[in-house]
């Protein structure tokens, strides 16, 4: 199975297309969502790079975790992430995804996003400026082109570890199991 995944990751044409067509799931999980509209709209116009919003997880390639995740949201984010079709990428926005940020002592937000879902790119800032967001996308594109954006693969391979982390904070796990 891994060979298959690696082949997928190293397909130059596919990677080129993936790089230039990043569909972002319209999910404002946190306050970082406020800098997404300026990025997507006329002043910064991320659509120049083929980055555009998508309404449902089935269609999206990129999941933006715009900041902190409340535990209640985390549950939905995991569900959403698993519904997305591989190859899929996660971008973590801002400090709170890296080490808890401003909410480091809040009982209701997770602190390290990459414990729960694989993150391909972290963007620094609180909030990241639109330039930062675009920079994050460009970095992601570079990684995709080089076949390095393998977060989704890591998730599949280390599902147990991720699950254990997820179930540690989500008390009532009422979700269907992995279904891809």
């Amino acid at each position, binding site marked *: 199975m891994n060979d298959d995944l690696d082949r997928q990751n190293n397909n130059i044409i596919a990677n080129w297309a993936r790089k230039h067509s990043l569909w972002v799931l319209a999910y404002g999980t946190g306050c970082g969502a406020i800098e997404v509209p300026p990025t997507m709209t006329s002043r910064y116009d991320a659509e120049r790079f083929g980055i555009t919003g998508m309404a449902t997880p089935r269609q999206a390639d990129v999941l933006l975790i715009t900041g902190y995740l409340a535990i209640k949201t985390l549950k939905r984010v995991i569900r959403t992430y698993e519904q997305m079709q591989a190859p899929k990428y996660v971008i973590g926005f801002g400090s709170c995804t890296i080490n808890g940020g401003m909410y*480091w*002592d809040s009982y209701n937000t997770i602190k390290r996003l990459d414990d729960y879902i694989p993150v391909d790119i*972290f963007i620094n800032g*609180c909030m990241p400026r639109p*330039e*930062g967001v675009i920079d*994050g996308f460009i*970095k992601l594109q570079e*990684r995709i082109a080089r076949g390095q954006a393998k977060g989704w693969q890591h998730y599949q391979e280390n599902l147990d570890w991720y699950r254990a982390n997820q179930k540690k904070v989500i008390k009532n796990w009422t979700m269907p199991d992995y279904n891809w």
Partner: protein
Amino acid sequence: MSIKGTLLPFSALKFLGKKPHTVRYPYQKKKTAERYRGFHYNDIEECIGCGTCATICQNEAIDMIQIEGIEAKKGDSGLRPRVDNGRCCWCGLCVEMCPTGSLSLTDQYLHTSSDPESYLLVPGVDHPEFAEHLSFVKDDEVRLLDLARVPMKELDPQERVKSFAEVVVGYMQEEARREATRCIDCGICVTACPDHMHIPEYIGAIADADDELALKYIYDNNPMPEMCGKVCTRQCETVCAIGHLGEPIAIRWLKRYATEQFPDPAAVLNPTIAPANGKKVGIVGAGPAGLSAGYYLALRGFDVTIYEALPKAGGMTFAGIPKYRFPMDSLDKQIGYMEKIGVKIKYNTRVGKDITFQEIRKNNDATFIGIGFHVPYKLGISGEDLQNSIQAIEFLRTINLGGNVYVGKKAVVIGGGNVAIDAARVARRLGAEVTILYRRRVQDMPADWEEIEAAEDEGVEIIPQGIPLEIIGEDGKVKAVKYGMAEMVPDPRGGRPRPKLIEGNEHIMETDTIIGAIGQEADYSFLPEDLKEELKIERGRVVVNEFKQTSIPDVFAGGDNVNRTMDAISAIADGVKAVEGITHYLMDE
């Protein structure tokens, strides 16, 4: 559906012919604002590692860490901030709070990485190029830290020259709270205090309106706060973090405030005295060093006897400090408390005359020498032996002992140290016109600038760069002093500039008294000859180890006759350290 409403929207199509306003990042970059709050930059040379940034950070994003190449020193903890950008929210509170102004935010904001571990940044060390990009810096107008000290009330100069009444009034409760509130609890002051008092703790206690707690912290390693609160040379304040951009916290005045609140320290401290351990310690000299050693030894259950030549304890703090700075009743309160604890002081007992040093050594298990520097240096010019040419240290001692000294209508004090200023101000109080003659410039004077200012306020004239050449006498009495003006030349060895006499620029000033105050030395005449050889003395100072132990194992030493700082707090520190040494020496077999 109106026709107008259906057609008007189509006017938007006019934008087809217009150039879009899109900023085509990354091909086209928009400049960030001048005040943009991006990544941190820290001028690590200027930073003193006070950790205020780490304290104020509500995200606990800032750690203070050891960095290669940065050494801890006086006024510098040796730590530097490291920012966790996985926590930071770039609010800039750290910048506003930075007491030195070394921390700023830059206009750099891009850090995109797939490695979440890469978000730790030591500002100033990582990315030194950010120095060119400073944007959000400290503002001069808007400050969070209160940089202005609560002014200390003093007697009017005209009033104070009339008597020996204490010049400084002391803080009222509310003033002390306000002043204590300015403190940022960094503890940098502790690095400079020779005694390493618990300064942030007691200031914090004062701010919290808990003066008793403050007193407990103070007495933890300083048994003479009454004195220190009034006349300490306060090296702590010279390194105070707040002092980098503003006026340092009035640490001395706060200590003074704390001690003044309680007429009887014993009632507050209620010290627990260890049961007698049967060991005896003899101390030569009831100066700060001897008293401190005696106090803490007594608390530890030692049998302590202090031998003092003068009829009062305190050493130089009694004999050398004028009473308008350190009133007698404060000293009495201090000594009274110590004697209450069980420190025995034998007054009017000059070692070497009334009792031999060998006797003391024989009677005690350990001995501490804290004799201080009480023998003045000679001026070394002709006419020095004339009547009315006196030594400041002797002058002050006589006055403090209640004696009388003739100063006449006009007195000239030679020297620029604290003793010189004290002598000048005392002479002023005795009714004389006083001039201070000093070899170097005013800014070179080793005396406290506050003292110099106070002296000037009181009408003391200072002639800087004046070198006395000769004391001219008449009828065996001083009549005038001849001095020459000097210019400052750089020291060939790289030291501070030295005065060089200008040929032919000589003046004569009439005076009734000459008071020499160019320094003192110790008098080791009490030592028997065999010990003089055994006891290692270098340049007039007893050589001791870390625990103030001399080359003779049972003899310890401290105070001016040991350390170069030559101030009361160093002497106290010596005493406190010696207690450790003596305990170690006597109790650990």
